[in-house]
Structure formats: C-alpha cells, structure tokens
C-alpha cells in the first residue's frame, strides 16, 4: 500500500464527496498530489538516519513532549511497541497519514485526522529510554544499561514534583506547526495504549535555543536572548565531542545521545518587577542586543576576565558566567528547550509558565550535572526560577528503514 500524504488525502476526499459518494473510499490513493511546499518550516525532515532526528535538526518552533511508564515486562511487547512507534513516527514525519485503515466506514480511522491538509512542518520524533526501564527484571535489560544512564543526583535548588519527572520512555515531537507535534504524541499514545501509559507531558509554544547557524537567536520568557553560545549542528567537531555517544558507550548507544529535561518554572511576576539593570546583571547580557555586559554585539566572546572600575564586568553570580564552558572545565551541552505556559498556578493565581529545558550530551554526569550543581547554588537567576520537573533519557542512534529505534537493545 502506497503511503498517503495528508494533502493528497484532502484533495481526493473533496473530489469523492463531490461526485462518487461512499464508493469513493480509498479513491484518495489516485488523487492528484498537491505541490508539496518544501520551504523552510513546512517541508519534511528525514526520520531514518545515523542519528535520530530532533537533536541536530534546526530547532523547530513548537514542542509536544511526553514521558511514558511501561506497563509490561514482556520484552516482545516492548519490541512490538517500538516497531509500531517507529513506523508511525516515520509516516508522520513524511507528512503521511499514520496506519493503514483510514477509510473504512465502520472502523475508526487509524490516524486521528487533525493533520489532514497540513504539511509535514519539519516534524521530528525522538525516542529515549529512562534509567528505570533497565530496572524491570522481566525485560532482562539490566546488563544493557549504560554507565552514563544513572539517575540524576539531587541538585541544589531542586523542587521536583515526581509526577512531572522521570519516565521509562520519552517521545519528543518538534514541529513548526503545533498541531503536527500534538498529533504525533496523540497517535503514539494511542498506538501504545495498554503497553504504555502517559506519565506526564509538556507542550512548548516557542523554541528558546538556536541549534543551527541558519537560525536567529530566540528570546525566552524573560525577554532575554537564549542559546547564543549554544553548540550549532554545523560545528560537527563539537557535536562529536560533546553530543554524540562514541566508543565509550555500549554498541546500542553509539551515535545516540543523553537527553536531560528540566521543567523550569519562571517566577515571571517577580522577574517583571526587577529593574532592567538587575535583569541584565542576573543574566550577564544586555537585554535587547544580547551582547555580553559592556559589549554591543551578541556574538562577541564573554569578557570573563575583564574588570570595570574594580568589579568583574560579567558578575560572578551571573548566569552566563556560571554556565560558560570556560567556567565548567570546557564542558558544553546542546540546548534545545521551549517556552511553556500551562494556565494559571492554582495556589498563586500567577502564570504557570517557564522554560521546558532540554539538552543533549554524551554524558550528563560530566556535562549537565556539574554545570547545574554550580548554577543551582549561586546563580543569581535562582531568585526567579524553580526546577520542578526532571528526567534523563538515553536516546539511541537513528534507525535504518525497515528497522526500529532501540533495536540494538534486543
């Protein structure tokens, strides 16, 4: 059966309704295909490849992230799930409808339908495995657990809610159309029903990082440019050195990466009351230009050793200083986070909003953890943020067409 693009389906369904009535079911297969726009934002990103998509892909604008608990301890069921998820994710990424049965009048369609007529919109679907997956005796994966997949240690400033943390399997769906990202998570959750249960999920409405030199630096909800000094995908040397797992990892993880997610609630009401001067000193950059304090260009190097009238130009407790590679023995991470809002904080009547931080690295214990240990203790930003959710996932390498993500585990 040939894949059904969502645009094609729409065009033919319209024709069917006009002239052919019920008998036209299935007629979409021969419908005339619309010219697929491949312009930035609407085109498709290859699902299969050396690495999973959604890491070195230029960060899309929208996110729907979900963490699932595995309900079975039967390895065959887990493999079957991963096989089905891989197929569905590949279909959705290509802008095709998910599943085979989408036109049987008496059957609910496989695809939930909300993306019919929408373009692929740069959808990427990225899968990861949490430490706890390897603790389930029935699965027999204990010996496969990489040393780097140790649960994150308690970090200073943590205010974690277990209900918004952890998970056995995660799915990161990114797209330039929020409905396309939502559709991916919804359909995977449906396919997994009975095998997995969604533990928590997070919508992100705007990217807060730049992962490609082709992108402008976006602003986070504090109004600050975020991700200026991020690793860029074009910097393949940095990607190899800091992001992709190499020979140090087990075979099934080589070419993969480790993903840390942190749900960071911003106390926006408090931040908004801070003077411009305090905001800039907290971050260590000028608000509007994004330049380091005292500078005028966003991309000029941080003058960490410079003094101004007897004080360090970039304050000792400023976020950029503490997070800089120079102050972290050279450690860097690939950030790929999103701004979120989930309505009103019930007990405060304030905006429940912030940053859903995502980062990728070769080893979280050597990269994210030491950076956050310092940030959590003395970052001036801590006055305005709370880390309320946390998770670590091993993101295996990409699948080949015909294979499935995580296949190397079994």
């Amino acid at each position, binding site marked *: 059966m040939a894949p059904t693009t969502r645009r094609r389906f729409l065009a033919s369904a319209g024709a069917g309704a006009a002239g052919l009535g019920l008998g036209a079911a299935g007629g979409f297969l021969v419908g005339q295909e619309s010219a697929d726009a491949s312009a930035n934002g609407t085109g498709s990103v290859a699902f299969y490849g050396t690495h999973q998509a959604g890491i070195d892909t230029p960060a899309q604008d929208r996110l729907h992230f979900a963490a699932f608990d595995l309900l079975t301890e039967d390895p065959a069921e887990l493999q079957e799930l991963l096989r089905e998820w891989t197929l569905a994710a590949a279909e959705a990424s290509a802008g095709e409808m998910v599943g085979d049965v989408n036109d049987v009048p008496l059957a609910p369609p496989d695809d939930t339908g909300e993306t019919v007529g929408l373009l692929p919109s740069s959808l990427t679907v990225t899968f990861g495995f949490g430490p706890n997956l390897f603790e389930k005796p029935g699965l027999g994966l204990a010996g496969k657990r990489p040393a780097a997949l140790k649960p994150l240690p308690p970090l200073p400033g943590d205010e974690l809610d277990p209900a918004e943390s952890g998970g056995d399997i995660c799915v990161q769906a990114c797209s330039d159309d929020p409905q396309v990202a939502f559709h991916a998570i919804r359909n995977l959750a449906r396919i997994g029903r009975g095998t997995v249960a969604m533990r928590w999920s997070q919508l992100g409405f705007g990217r807060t990082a730049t992962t490609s030199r082709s992108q402008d630096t976006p602003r986070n909800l504090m109004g600050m440019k975020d991700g200026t000094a991020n690793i860029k995908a074009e910097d393949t040397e940095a990607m190899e050195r800091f992001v992709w797992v190499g020979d140090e990892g087990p075979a099934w993880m080589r070419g993969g990466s480790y993903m840390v997610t942190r749900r960071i609630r911003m106390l926006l009401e408090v931040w908004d009351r801070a003077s411009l001067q305090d905001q800039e000193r907290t971050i260590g950059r000028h608000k509007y230009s994004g330049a380091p304090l005292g500078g005028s260009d966003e991309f000029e190097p941080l003058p960490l050793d410079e003094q101004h009238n007897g004080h360090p130009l970039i304050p000792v407790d400023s976020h950029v200083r503490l997070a800089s590679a120079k102050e972290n023995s050279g450690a860097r991470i690939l950030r790929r986070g999103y701004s979120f809002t989930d309505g009103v904080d019930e007990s405060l009547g304030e905006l429940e909003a912030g940053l859903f931080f995502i980062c990728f690295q070769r080893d979280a214990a050597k990269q994210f953890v030491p950076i956050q240990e310092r940030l959590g203790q003395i970052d001036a930003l801590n006055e*305005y943020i709370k880390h309320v959710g946390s998770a670590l996932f091993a993101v295996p390498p990409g699948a080949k067409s015909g294979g499935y993500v995580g296949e190397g585990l079994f």
Partner: protein
Amino acid sequence: MNLKMLCAGTALLLVLSISACGSSEDAPAGAKQVSFKLTDAGCEPHDTKAPAGPITFEIENAGTAKVTEMEIMDGETILGEKENLSDGLSGNFSLTLEKGEYTIYCPGGDDERGTLIVSGDLKAQNSPQIEKSIASYRTYLEQNTDKLVAKTAPFVAAVEAGDVAKAKSLYTAARIPYEKIEPVAESFGSLDPRIDARENDVPASEFEGFHRIEKALWEEGTAAGMAPVAKQLQADVEELAAKVKTVDLQAVQIANGANELLGEVSASKITGEEERYSHTDLVDFEANVEGAEAAFEAVKPLLDETDPELSGEIEADFKMVFAALEPYRQGNGFVSYTELTKADTRKLAQSIDTLAEKLSQVPAAIAQAEHQ
C-alpha cells in the same frame, strides 16, 4: 534604539550610584562643569579629568564644520551626547559618573577620541534628604540585627540544652528580625546561605543555620547533634550584626531591598517552602512585608518629591496586604501554613503582586529625585 534604553543598559556599570543614569539638560545642583570647544582637530581639551559625581559638559562650536557633536562613552556605549552644534552654537548635557576612564568622542575631528578620567568617590554628592533616608534605614537595620543577636541567643541556648519544646517556642522570634532585613544579609556572600539556606539550596554537607535546626526540632523531634550548628548560627548572626555597621547604603539600594523582600514572599513564603518543617511561613511573610514597608518609609520622602501619587498608592497597598494577612492571625503569630487552602494563598499572592508591581517603580522614581 532610543537614548533612554542605551542609558538604562549602561546603568549597571555605575552600580551603586544613586542617579545611576542621568543625562539631562538641567545641570544638577553642585555639578562640576567641564567646558569643551569643538574645532577641526576634534575636542579641546583632548583629555581631561573630573571628580566622580554629577558633571555638566558645556560644549561650544568654535568655528568648525567638521565636528558638530560630542559624546561621552563607556567603552562603545554612549552615556550622553550633544549633537547638531554647528558653528557658533553651544549646548550642554549632564551625567553622573563613577570613578573610571571614559572616552570623549568627537566624530569628524582629526583626532576623534580623547580620554576623560573620573576619580574620587560618589558618596559625597548625596542631598540632605537622601542622607536622612539612609540614616533612618540604617537605624532600622541595626535595630533588627541587634535584635537578631539578642533573640537568637536564648534559642541557641535551648537547642544546646536539648530542650526541644522551648527551642520551638523561641524559633520564630529569632527568625523575624532576620526576615525583615534579609536583602542586606544577602549582600554578604556566604553569610546568608550559612544562616538561612533551605535544605535543597546547598549541598547536604553545607546545610546548616536556622533551617537545619528547624528540621531537627520539627521533623526529627530532637536537638541532638545540633549544638555545634546552633553555636555557629550565633557566631554568624553576630558577624552579620557587626558587618551591617559598616555597610555602604544607598537610597536606590534600600528601595530595591523592599522589592527583593516582596520577591522573597512570592517565591518562598506563599508557597510554604521557607519553613517547610515548622510551617511558620506566615510569620516570615509578615516580617518580609514589614521590612519592605520600613525600607519604603525610609525613602518615601524622596518619592514624595517626584511621584506623590505613587507614594500614596503604595502606602494604601501596604495596608491592603496587612489586612489580607489579618484573618490568619492566631495568638502571637499565625496559623500553620498547612491550614491554608489554595484560595487563601491565591488571595495573599495577589495582594503581594499588586503592591510589588507599584513598589518596583520606586528605585527609578527616587533616582530621578536627584536631578531636581
């Protein structure tokens, strides 16, 4: 980009100055005058010196068509400028500058860049009212740190004696004076975390101070092992009391401190995170607000000069916040945080947000007072 924005962006470099950023046509009282002539060569003098504080730059075009403006820059950032001074015209602008080296930039001249060296101390520039405001807050500050030392002593004694019940009864009395002046304590680096860190703020080995003892008393139900922690706490609050006596205070800083206290309320008191074992968060809540009110009252005369309307609104909002807290008063203190419903905390949070939004306008408003 407008000048106001540029100006605000550089204000951080002049950290403690009261009128951190001012470029105005009216010369501030007592401003040092520095005169320049625009010539084909650039600006005359090429280099000059001035004392820290308000400086008025008088510029006259002495017959050049090449140079028609002068800028004072800090690095590449323009702090102040006078433009469009064609032959025969003159003009001026004023800046308050801290000690340092600045660039005199005269675009178009043969030699465009000269150096302005500013030396000396800014503090002497305070008006009598500013000095009065600072003195009044200093008194409040010292009263509270003295009280902190006095009220911590019996608490520490009870902990050392292993008397859990007595220590619990003395806990909040020691906390109150600290919570009133917390932003000042925070300016002394590691002193605040030693005295007041919550369990997850610091590595386990560094968890000490009030909240370590709070945890022992309320959660562990014993003071065992707490004697050294208590002893250190007493030493730390004494160190704080000694340090505040020499701390350099500025009016804008005091006003900022009021904001920070309300930020504390929003971030950790309304959420019950501060006193997570004793649940005495509302005691801290009231102390933070009282501390903010005292800081505000100290600088209020300055605000009354520039924005009496805002001043009146803030006074009314303080009353509103205290009124919102009133239903939860119980005995000498307040009900346990655990008795509050989400609707209760929501109402309290909203009252703080209302007040704090206005209070956050005070530092800029009183910095303005300096130029009048």
